[in-house]
Every structure is written in structure tokens, then in C-alpha cells.
């Protein structure tokens, strides 16, 4: 921090006007510095508030789930039965359901989001069709998830049911597969818009050099654009995975909500976020409530672990 006494006050001309002028300038520059200091401190404060919030949420989750951790122990994580009547709580079916539906959604969404990013970033950055596409993709991110849920239940589930009866699995429609499809649509905008901005940032001299060497458009994308942007694309995919892991409303409407372990990807299941949303209001026993909060803690930790792995992969990509 800079204070008034630190300021060098150099007076070259000692006439009264010059002294006054110099003092005024010093005052002005001090005022500027003070503004800078205040702004700097505000930024630090805002950053700290964010950190305090995250740590606070984590601590709250830990403290609130202590009764359940004490009563159930680590077996909670791989227990296969969730029976509120007999106070037996095992998170495994929901952990499995969350990971299965989120990663399946990610696999379905990646071709779409990368294509949209390349189309908008490299092939057609301007024009009415790209603008329409860009707005449409951004609009998907703005649609409330309950609307996706209703649409999924009313339109997508009957289609999935017909599909299931053709391939010979139990035609129930709702299940992990339906929820992955809905999730995939919901998370496309995140990876697509981050990917598009990354592709826009590729220096044009690199691309021009490649074209100059006789590379075709596909070769430029494959050998210049994608290698240059892969960490950004991956970050976008990671962001969309985080969104998929925590999505609640749309998933709970189409996943079938059973506590049984899903036998295949078409079977009904449940996710951690969905169980919390479903059962929180009527959790009428302390251990039950605590077990639900511990589910939130597990989800929190899963997200943290996946993010850490993601960061490692991004680091490795950028170091090459």
C-alpha cells in the first residue's frame, strides 16, 4: 500500500505557481492511487467472499452429515439399499446413476457441441444462418430445466419407449437413457460457446501459414485449430459435465426414480441430486435428513474430484 509520505515531491521550479501546480498534480495522482487501492481491495474482498462461500458450504455439508456418517460409517458409499423405513441408507445406486447418466450425456453431446463450435468459429463466423444457430444454442441454455423435463416426458419418452420395444428391452420409456438424452441437449451450449470463443482466438497468421502451405480446410482444422484449442474445448466439456452432474429437475422427471441398481442403460434409476430434491421435504427422521445431506456432500466431492482430474488433463495438454 502506498501512503502520502512515500510520494516523491520533486520541485524543479520554486516559483509559487509552479509549487502550487506540482502540489495539485501530487494530490491528483494520490487520489488516483487511492482509487486504485480501493478497487484492488474490493476485488480481493469479492474473491475472498467466493472462497468463504465455497468453504462454508462444504463445512455445512460436513457438519450436517455428521449424524449420518456416525450412524452409517463408510459403508454408506457402497451400500446398495436405500430404505428410509428401516433407516438403512446406501448411496451406491444413486452414485452409479449420477455417473452413468452424466457421462452418457457427455458422450452423446460431444459430437454436437464440437461441430457447432467449429461451424460457428471457423466455417461461418458471420451471416444469418450462423447467427440463428448461435442464438438457438444460447437459447437452450436459457430454457428452465423443468420445461426440458416436461418436454422429455411428453415427447422424448414415448419415442424412447417405441425404440426400446424394437430392440427388445422392457419398454418403460423413462430411465437412464432418456435422462441422458435430455441432459445431452441441456449441456450442449456450455461446451459449444466456450469452444467457439476458443476457435475465434486462434491467431490468423497460423491458419494463413497453413493455407499458404497448401493445406485444405479440414487439414487446417485438424492440424492447427484443434491442437491450438484442445485445452479450451476440454474445459468447455468439463463445464458441461459439471452441469450434468448437478442437474435435478429435468432428470427426476424422466429417470424413473427407483432405488434399485440399474441393470442396463435403459433401466430406470436415480441420481443423487434427484433423490435430494425428491425426499428432502418429507425426511422426517434426523438420520434420514442427515443421510440426504451426506448425499449432497458426496456429490460435492465427486464434482471436486472430476474437476481436479480435468485440470490435470488440461495441464498435460498445454505442456505438450
Amino acid at each position, binding site marked *: 500500500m502506498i501512503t502520502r509520505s512515500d510520494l516523491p515531491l520533486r520541485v524543479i521550479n520554486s516559483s509559487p505557481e509552479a509549487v502550487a501546480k506540482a502540489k495539485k498534480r501530487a494530490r*491528483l495522482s494520490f*487520489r*488516483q492511487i487511492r*482509487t486504485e487501492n*480501493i*478497487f484492488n481491495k*474490493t476485488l480481493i474482498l469479492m474473491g475472498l467472499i467466493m472462497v468463504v462461500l465455497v468453504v462454508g458450504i462444504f463445512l455445512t455439508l460436513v457438519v450436517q452429515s455428521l449424524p449420518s456418517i456416525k450412524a452409517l460409517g463408510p459403508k454408506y458409499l457402497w451400500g446398495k*439399499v*436405500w*430404505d*428410509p*423405513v*428401516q433407516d*438403512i441408507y446406501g448411496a451406491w445406486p444413486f452414485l452409479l446413476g449420477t455417473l452413468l447418466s452424466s457421462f452418457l450425456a457427455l458422450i452423446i453431446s460431444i459430437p454436437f457441441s464440437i461441430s457447432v463450435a467449429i461451424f460457428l468459429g471457423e466455417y461461418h463466423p458471420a451471416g444469418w444462418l450462423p447467427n440463428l444457430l448461435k442464438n438457438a444454442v444460447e437459447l437452450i441454455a436459457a430454457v428452465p430445466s423443468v420445461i426440458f423435463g416436461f418436454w422429455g*416426458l*411428453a415427447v422424448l*419418452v*414415448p419415442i424412447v*419407449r417405441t425404440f426400446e420395444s424394437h430392440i427388445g428391452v*422392457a419398454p*418403460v*420409456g*423413462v430411465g437412464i437413457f432418456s435422462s441422458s438424452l435430455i441432459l445431452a441437449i441441456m449441456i450442449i451450449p456450455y461446451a459449444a460457446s466456450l469452444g467457439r470463443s476458443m476457435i475465434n482466438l486462434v491467431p490468423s497468421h497460423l491458419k494463413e501459414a497453413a493455407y499458404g502451405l497448401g493445406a485444405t480446410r479440414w487439414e487446417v482444422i485438424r492440424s492447427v485449430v484443434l491442437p491450438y484449442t484442445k485445452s479450451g474445448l476440454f474445459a468447455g466439456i468439463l463445464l458441461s459435465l459439471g452441469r450434468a452432474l448437478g442437474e435435478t429437475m429435468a432428470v*427426476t*422427471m424422466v429417470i*424413473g*426414480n*427407483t*432405488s434399485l441398481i440399474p441393470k442396463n442403460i435403459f433401466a*430406470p434409476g*436415480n441420481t443423487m441430486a*434427484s433423490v435430494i*430434491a*425428491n*425426499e428432502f*421435504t*418429507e*425426511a*422426517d*427422521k*434426523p438420520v434420514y435428513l442427515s443421510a440426504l445431506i451426506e448425499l449432497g456432500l458426496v456429490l460435492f466431492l465427486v464434482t471436486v474430484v472430476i474437476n481436479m482430474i480435468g485440470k490435470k488433463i488440461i495441464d498435460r495438454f498445454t505442456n505438450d
Partner: protein
Amino acid sequence: MTIKRAIGAGVFFAILSTSLVSCGGGGNTGGSDSTSTDDALIGAGSSFDNPLFSKQFSEYSKTNGLKVNYQSIGSGAGISQLTAKTVDFGASDAPMNGKQDSALSAPAVHIPITAGAVVLSYNLPDVKDTLMLTPGVLADIFLGKITKWDDKAIAAINKGVKLPSTTIVIAHRSDGSGTSNIFTTYLAKVSDEWNTKVGHGSSVNWPAGLGGKGNEGVAGLIKQTPGAIGYIELAYAIQNNMPYAKMQNKAGNFITPSIASVTAAANIQIPADTKVSLTNTDAADGYPISGFSWVIIYKDQKYGDRSQDRATKLVKLISWMIHDGQQYSSALNYAPLSPAAVSAGDAVLKSVTYDGKPILQ
């Protein structure tokens, strides 16, 4: 430049400080609301009761000027709010259990406020007659033991009905709910196997089937899936023109669920604390999967800084709800309280005190 920056920083801080202040302010008013004014009461709980309560409270405020702010956040959450003393009354579709009772700092009383029924709705497009079910068959279906609609056990009850060979798809509530509690309580009463394997509660470990969130979620699954069967509230089934099955009651009669048959089921000997399940009652013409919904208040109304005026208003309101307020039930597809239930409720209200003295004379 400097002035602009200074203003910028000033605005920044102003926004920051107002947002912080407003956060704090919001928290404060939430806490003090329940005690500051005596012409508005606060209640929270059952979402099943909400349409009836809205109508009753709006009618009551026309004549008495008393406003009631009811938050339909679910029965369990309503009980938590009452335990935390942030509301004047809680409303629940299930009586408080032992653990909830022991969390209370003072004894509370239950007053039956209305009754509802849980019906079995199904999706069998080709079946024109109303399906009939016995308790045993119903339990076997929900246990996953009967898996086809043309099973001998179902056909034996529904003679002359051409049942399809479709697989039975079970739909149940995924969210914890009073509806599930009434339904599982009934199954636990009529089937020993259900009682030992699954038990009863607002959320249970379902042996089979799909879960839907809320009545609309279960109804959506039933409407969409050929061969589906699921349980929903009677009022919801009537409003949405969904078919529902006749159930055999304890006396052996097959009863169509209706407002009248629910009221009939409630016309039984009611214990002094009114905490009675209306499932599988002895009433010969009663629908067997029925249940009360209760309003729960503290037995002694002097707690915190409550005034006697506020306590009197609350007790008078509830007394009106179980007498004059019942006229609004039928139009909204709620079953009016049976005479036995009203007199039991009256007795409970007479026992409510303020600082040890009875409120109603």
C-alpha cells in the same frame, strides 16, 4: 477521469453495501414476522390441504379480517417449522411420529381438518368396465409378484372382463408424501409380507416400479405407459378424468372411491388424540384407503412472546375450519369430516390452553 473513477468506486461500494444490508434485512423480517403482528397467522405444511385451505382462509378473512399465510411446503417440513416455532400451526397428512414428538419442546395436539383418499388408477385402454381389486391382489402387484394383467388372481375378481396380457408397470411417488404414507400404511395392514419387507412411511424402498414426482408425475406415467397402475389422490383423479379401481374393504364390499365413501370410512370410534389411520376401517360402506389430514398446534399456546389475542384467534380459526369451513370441502373434492371426527376435534380444541387456562370456554 479521477471523478469518474471515484464515482465508479463509490457506486461499486454502494451496491455492495445495499446488497449486504438487504440480505441481513430479509433474514430479520422473516424471523420477526410471526410475532410482530397479531392480525396475520402463519401456517405451513401439507400440499394436499393447500387448495382447501386457500378457499377456507379467503372466506374466513372476509368475515373476520384475519389473514392466514399458508406455505404448502410438505407435511414433514411443516412439522419442522412448528418444531422451530416459526409458524402458528403445522398441517400434516401423517400424525407426528415418536421421533418428531421428542424433538418438540412442548406437547402438541392434532386436530383432524379434512379427509382424502388414495385411488388406484390404471391404463388399460381396452378394459371398459371399472377394475376391481382385493387387498391381497393389490399387495402382490406392488410387491412385484403379479406381473401380467391376465394373471389368474386378477381375472378371478374381475369375472367377465377381458384382461390383456400386458406387463404390469407400477407407478409410485418418488417424492416423500402423505399420499405414499396412507397407501403404504394400508398395504402394511392388509399384507404381512408388505409389512415385513417394505413397511410404511412417506418414502419407502419400493420393491418394483417407476417413480414420478408428485401426483402429476405419477399420473403422467400412468397416462403414457400402457399397462400401468399407480396410486394418486382422489381429487386429482376426479379433476383429470382418470379411471380408478373399486377396492374391497374390510367388510368384503367393493367400494368406489368417492367423497361420501371416504367420509363413511371416517365415521368410526376416534381416539382422544385423534391420531388414527383411516385405512382398512370397519365401516361397511367406507373406502379402505382413506386418511385424515391434521392441523397441529402447541397444547399450551403461551410460548415465545405470543399474545393471548393471537392464541385465541388461532383456536377460533381452527374451530371454524372444522365446523362452518367444511362446507367448502365437497366442491374441491375433499371429504367433509365425519360427525365423529368433528366432535373429537372439538374435544381437542377445548383442551388447548394459554398459560394453563383453557382458551375456549
